[in-house]
């Protein structure tokens, strides 16, 4: 087993830099999830660790050994792909054993490893089938099995659940978590689905445009984002942002005016020095609005309300036309054209400077 260390790892295609010197330490046995919007380089970074993409700078070490120039097969990694990448002309058993057979692994050992993987994933009954005859979930299980038989030090998952329907995705998510606790090996998992990230990860790495925005435990990222991007990316539905400007420092923080909300003011716990008039973005998660009168009230015109039973998501606009999403467990009767009054609570609101960094 082994950890993974990235030191100033960079990748460029010609003049275009896609990964900008990433530093990251993944501990032995840790489950790390890379998240970020499409094109942020998360899959590229994973493929660089796997050795499928050459790196243009920096260093990648697996288990303390620099693997920059090591062939993918000799890095001790195994990879699971989004499209499963099962060999369509082979049975499940042949798929699982292909790599070992091609490498001249002793037959008895190959047999034993395949049996064990099939047992772990409960796919014994499928061994003689072709991928065509499997459901999406079964295919993904075989793809994971193909990784298991290699006894890798590090598992790499590239959006493995993206092709599955919602229900199967939940089920497979649980299975991957179970697998991690059973095998205890290092796993690096790429996804754009933040539910997967929040539920599976020991630590989440948020990437944007080839740079690491923040690394931390899921709830730390949720509770204490370093910048506006992470705040907006982690949490579903996403955080609401209101334009504001600083007025003055006072006891307990800084007074800001919400520019588009009829000039209502709120005192936020910001210690950082700011010039009066400097632009601030106030962020409030949909689930963090208070009842009217508990903080700074704003009035919203309801556009659509989604009633999920356990709670309701209200899609509304401020009087200035800014879209706002509010979670209101008790708003079952609310519908379009209604008016909703909510309160921004200073201790549940986040403030960000114009360059996006968190104002604390």
């Amino acid at each position, binding site marked *: 087993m082994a950890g993974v260390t990235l030191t100033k790892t960079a990748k460029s295609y010609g003049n275009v830099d896609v990964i900008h010197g990433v530093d990251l330490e993944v501990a032995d046995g840790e489950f790390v999830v890379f998240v970020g919007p499409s094109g942020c380089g998360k899959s590229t970074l994973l*493929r660089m660790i796997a050795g499928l993409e050459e790196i243009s700078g920096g260093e990648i070490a697996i288990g303390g050994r620099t693997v920059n120039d090591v062939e993918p*097969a000799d890095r001790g990694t195994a990879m699971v*792909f*989004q499209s499963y990448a099962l060999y369509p002309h082979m049975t499940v058993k042949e798929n699982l054993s*292909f*790599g070992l057979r091609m*490498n001249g692994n002793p037959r008895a050992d190959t047999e034993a490893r395949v049996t064990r993987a099939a047992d772990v994933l409960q796919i014994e009954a499928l061994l003689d089938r072709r991928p065509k005859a499997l459901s999406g979930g079964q295919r993904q299980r075989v793809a994971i099995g193909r990784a298991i038989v290699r006894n890798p030090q590090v598992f790499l998952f590239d959006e493995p659940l993206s092709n599955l329907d919602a229900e199967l995705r939940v089920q497979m998510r649980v299975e991957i978590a179970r697998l991690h606790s059973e095998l205890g090996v290092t796993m690096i998992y790429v996804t754009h689905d933040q539910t997967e990230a929040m539920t599976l990860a020991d630590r989440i790495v948020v990437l944007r445009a080839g740079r690491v925005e923040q690394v931390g435990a899921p709830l730390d990222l949720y509770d204490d984002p370093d910048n506006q991007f992470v705040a907006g990316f982690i949490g579903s539905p996403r955080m609401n942002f209101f334009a504001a400007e600083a007025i003055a420092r006072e006891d307990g923080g800084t007074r800001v005016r919400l520019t588009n909300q009829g000039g209502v003011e709120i005192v936020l716990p910001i210690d950082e020095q700011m010039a009066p008039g400097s632009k601030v973005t106030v962020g409030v998660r949909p689930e963090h609005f208070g009842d009217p009168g508990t903080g700074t009230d704003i009035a919203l015109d309801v556009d659509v309300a989604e009633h999920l039973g356990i709670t309701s998501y209200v899609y509304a606009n401020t009087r200035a036309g800014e879209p706002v999403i509010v979670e209101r467990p008790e708003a079952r009767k609310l519908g379009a054209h209604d008016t909703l009054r909510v309160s921004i609570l200073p201790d549940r609101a986040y403030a960000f400077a114009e360059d996006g960094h968190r104002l604390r």
Partner: protein
Amino acid sequence: MSRAPERTGASGPAVETHGHGRSRSRVRLTRIIVLHLFLVPLALIWLFPLWMMFIFSTMPDSGIFSPGVQLLPSDQFLTNLAALQEETRFLRTIFVSVVVAVIYTALSVMLTSMAGWALVRYRFAGRGMVVAIILGTITLPYFVVVIPQFILVARDLGLSDTWVALIVPPLFNSLGVLFMRQSFSLMPTELFDAAQVEGVTEWQIFTRVALPLAKPTMAALSIILFLASWNNYLWPLLITNSPEMMTAPVALGTLIGVTRVSWGGIMVGAVLLTAPMLLVFVFLQRFFMSGITAGAVK
């Protein structure tokens, strides 16, 4: 009230369902009839020369040019065949043709697959240029190539009248390269990535993953290449002199003499050359079409 015509519940309006079904099948029937009225005559026009080839092969030379048109076979097939064999050692030439076509097809499929694979799998400087040049050679008429090729093979290498001269020069088939390249490029790269991560060697990825998946394309390409070799006339005509190395089409050509043309013999030869190919094509048609159109949808 409108109901889906497929609905056939016990309580559903059965009459209406039937009505829909009937009108639909009537449309289909009309379409089939119109299609056949058009296609059957077309097929007859196509098949007529083939049929006449067969008829002529069973007639004596004297009968072929008699004024009346005969549409049914006569009884001189074996006589014509014997004459053909005597004049050209035709069975030997067929043997040469088969050997050349089989070896050529096997080698060419292998070579073009490897070239196609390299063009898909490896990023190297000038890859686009290589593809463009290969594509460009398709537009060159064969007659432009054949003279320099002849000079090179016959004069410079002194290989005329050899198996090598018959098989090797046409081996690198640009169409085949593009065909195979297309087939490989439609396969998901992740398949090969997965094999690479598993430590499967490049050659094994090619032979154990890519080639099995390219089987339909390879089958279609094989038929095309086999036919091309089987029907090739100009190159074997140029490069062979002795009757020993003559291919069947060239041998047939020799029957067109200055003073006398043995039409019966030529027709027997043509039947013997055409029939196997027709049968092969008819039986492999499904495979062939699926190979050519593979990846066209999706």
